[in-house]
């Protein structure tokens, strides 16, 4: 498969190996994050004028789901401020390793039975159930952000490396899953060099950099899922054996190694959540919005249980029946449950397309709230950039539905291609492209539903 190593470009090499650009961006991100927490608590309670709500749920979300994840995979994780204070304390330095400095914390190993993303699945759905309140109430957003950073620091004190990011962060799970579509990857150039390298400095660290914060040995890495793109291995490899490749998007989805049930369920959780959000936030059903907002009420419990049943039982259940039908009618090399896990990876492009299409429906409509919020972050009468009094203006509203249709259709066809390739991996007989038609029908049905909800 064609690859182009971006490290060959001197400017990119310098930007990625030098620690200062990364540190400055991280410090800005942390400052902005703390500013958002403060704005949540002391800024105006009017959501559309509050810095925390607009910067996090409009600006950050738009950049994350529409730019960072599709193009750079875990690029956001590289500069995410949430684990920063904990990591700096853990390392004992903010810039580079210091001699005889081991940092603070117990540095325990994360228990084996939790070395998966099930807890991230639970964390994401737990937050998703309250999201209508979190997205609209600045002080709740402030509390969630504060809780996240405090929890991340606490975890850094107890466990080694970026345990919080890899196993607990509510958004880390889906960023990892969707980072498989990214056209950028960090990989080793020659695995035999890593095999022969005794010190494995990419994992243990040296004076030029820290051992992989994500606990990965780059020599064995075949997918983007758990690579935080922090570039430590690029700095610590004494053989210049690390490449940052430009590659065909979605390559990881065809990688048979490392397909797991927890990640398969993440695909359903994300696809299902995009559907539920489209119904609740975009749909015309006021009673549903009220139920989702009235946390703790009988109606909210109904909403919460339906949400969980939809993403954890109904969607995977129907998908499993579709997979079992394929397995019974055209026996392959694998059992239905294994096939269920494998085919679920084909839902990644569709899931990402669903989230981008869903986000498009409110991001460009509401992004004009950003200008007054940047000019007057606390609604205290400031006018830093002269835009404090600019009014709400939806952008590109005429074109958004057409773009949503294109994105969903591209997502569907991409998913169908992956379904057919996965089907080809396990068939015993001659490969027929439409053999997995029940899974293709499932994807087409979900896409039709989304088209109806978002554009119809």
């Amino acid at each position, binding site marked *: 498969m064609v690859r182009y190593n971006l490290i060959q470009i001197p400017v990119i090499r310098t930007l990625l190996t030098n620690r200062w650009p990364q540190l400055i961006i991280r410090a*800005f991100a942390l*400052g902005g994050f703390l500013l958002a927490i403060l704005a949540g608590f002391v800024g*105006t309670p009017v959501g559309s004028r509050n810095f925390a709500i607009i910067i996090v749920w409009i600006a950050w979300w738009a950049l994350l789901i529409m730019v960072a994840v599709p193009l750079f995979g875990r690029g956001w994780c590289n500069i995410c401020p949430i684990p920063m204070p904990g990591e700096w304390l853990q390392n004992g330095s903010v810039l*580079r390793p210091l001699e005889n400095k081991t940092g603070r914390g117990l540095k325990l190993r994360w228990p084996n039975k939790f070395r998966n993303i099930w807890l991230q699945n639970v964390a994401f759905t737990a937050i998703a159930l309250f999201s209508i309140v979190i997205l609209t109430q600045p002080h709740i957003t402030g509390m969630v952000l504060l809780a996240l950073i405090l929890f991340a620091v606490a975890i850094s004190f107890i466990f080694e490396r970026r345990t919080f990011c890899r196993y607990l962060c509510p958004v880390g799970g889906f960023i990892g899953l969707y980072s498989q579509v990214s056209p950028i990857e960090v990989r080793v150039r020659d695995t035999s060099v890593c095999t022969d390298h005794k010190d494995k400095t990419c994992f243990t660290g040296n004076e030029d950099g820290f051992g992989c914060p994500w606990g990965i040995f780059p020599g064995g890495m075949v997918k983007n899922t758990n690579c935080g793109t922090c570039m430590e291995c690029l700095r610590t490899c004494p053989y210049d054996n690390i490449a940052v490749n430009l590659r065909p998007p979605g390559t990881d989805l065809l990688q048979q190694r490392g397909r797991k049930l927890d990640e398969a369920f993440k695909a359903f959780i994300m696809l299902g959540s995009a559907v539920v959000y489209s119904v609740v936030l975009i749909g015309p059903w006021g009673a549903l919005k009220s139920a989702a907002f009235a946390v703790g009420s009988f109606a909210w419990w109904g909403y919460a249980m339906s949400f969980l049943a939809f993403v954890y039982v109904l969607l995977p259940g129907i998908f499993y029946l579709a997979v079992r039908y394929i397995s019974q009618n055209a026996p392959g090399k694998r059992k239905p449950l294994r096939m269920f896990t494998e085919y679920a990876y084909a839902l990644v492009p569709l899931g990402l397309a669903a989230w981008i299409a869903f986000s498009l429906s409110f991001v460009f409509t509401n992004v004009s709230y950003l200008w007054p919020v940047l000019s*007057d972050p606390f*609604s205290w009468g400031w006018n830093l950039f002269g835009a*404090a009094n600019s009014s709400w203006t939806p952008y590109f509203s005429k074109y958004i539905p057409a773009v949503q249709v294109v994105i969903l259709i591209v997502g569907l066809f991409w998913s169908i291609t992956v379904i057919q390739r996965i089907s080809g991996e396990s068939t015993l007989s001659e490969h027929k492209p439409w053999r997995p038609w029940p899974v293709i029908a499932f994807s087409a049905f979900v896409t039709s539903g989304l088209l109806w909800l978002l554009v119809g």
Partner: protein
Amino acid sequence: MASRRIRVEWIARMIVLVLVLGLSSMAFASRWLNRSRGIDVHARMPESGGWSPDVLNVDVGEPLILRMISDDVVHGFAVGQSSQPPIDVMPGKVAEVSLTFDNPGTYTFYCTRWCGPNHWRMRGTIEVNGALEIPGTTDPPLYLTLGIDLDSPHEVPVDLVRRPSAKRSAALDFDIPEDYLTRDYYLSHSPYEAWRDLRNESSISQFTDGDIWDLVAWLWASNTTSEAISTGEELYAQNCAACHGETGNGNGVFARLVEDDTPADSSSPDFGHEIVAPTDFTDPPQMMGAAPALLHGKILRGGMGTGMPSWGQIFTKDQIWAIVDYLWTFQFQMEVKP
């Protein structure tokens, strides 16, 4: 080498500290800087607290700079009995206003936008301290001078077959006696009382009941001006229509939220605090039994436990009379005077 590394690390730490603290401390810096630029007044729907603070203090002649911000919906700000035009207080945006008072006293500020069912409760006071330049006296309200009990029922048995018209009365061959034409007569009598008095005039016994009502309409029209009605219409639309309805039928947007229109029993803990259905100004038995002074008093004092607020601190005497004049247009056709 090692000491250089430590030096660079400290520089990095300082940069991180400056960026992180600098950005996050903007919150406190702006609050501190704003302190000298006036008083922050937060506006919230009355159910969530109304104005905060709702009592302001200032000395006579000193500017009172207010930085108003709504924490929920659109509100408006105005000071009662003042020529200061109302300003809108938008959600999350600061609206600055500077007020200077020439006379000491207690002024009422209030919300001018229909912000919620309890909009009319959204008021605060400005205590203006200082000595009076010219001590003045206050006249007692007219309803007290006339001994009108604002709370006693004043419904009358009226069954109109047509809307009384000042224009139609011009066709009647009758000169209304002088006694009826005085301002005092108009203020202290209800239309029904005027009709009854005219009905008893032997010289017009040939007139139908409807003709007499047309004469009453003329009497009422002769006590107002089109300018006053126009002012009253504007004030009514801004301040009264939310409950009494734009057409005066008592079915305003907030009235529809009042579930129970029955006044609570005097033994009930709710007595005096319940909200009853607003008066229907299009209902002849209700309106024809009310003297102008009674309507003026109701507006001035408020409904005392019905939900009708007191407007005495908000409107000037002339503004209240303008509203009273406008209210009669729901009963009478007053456009053409003979």
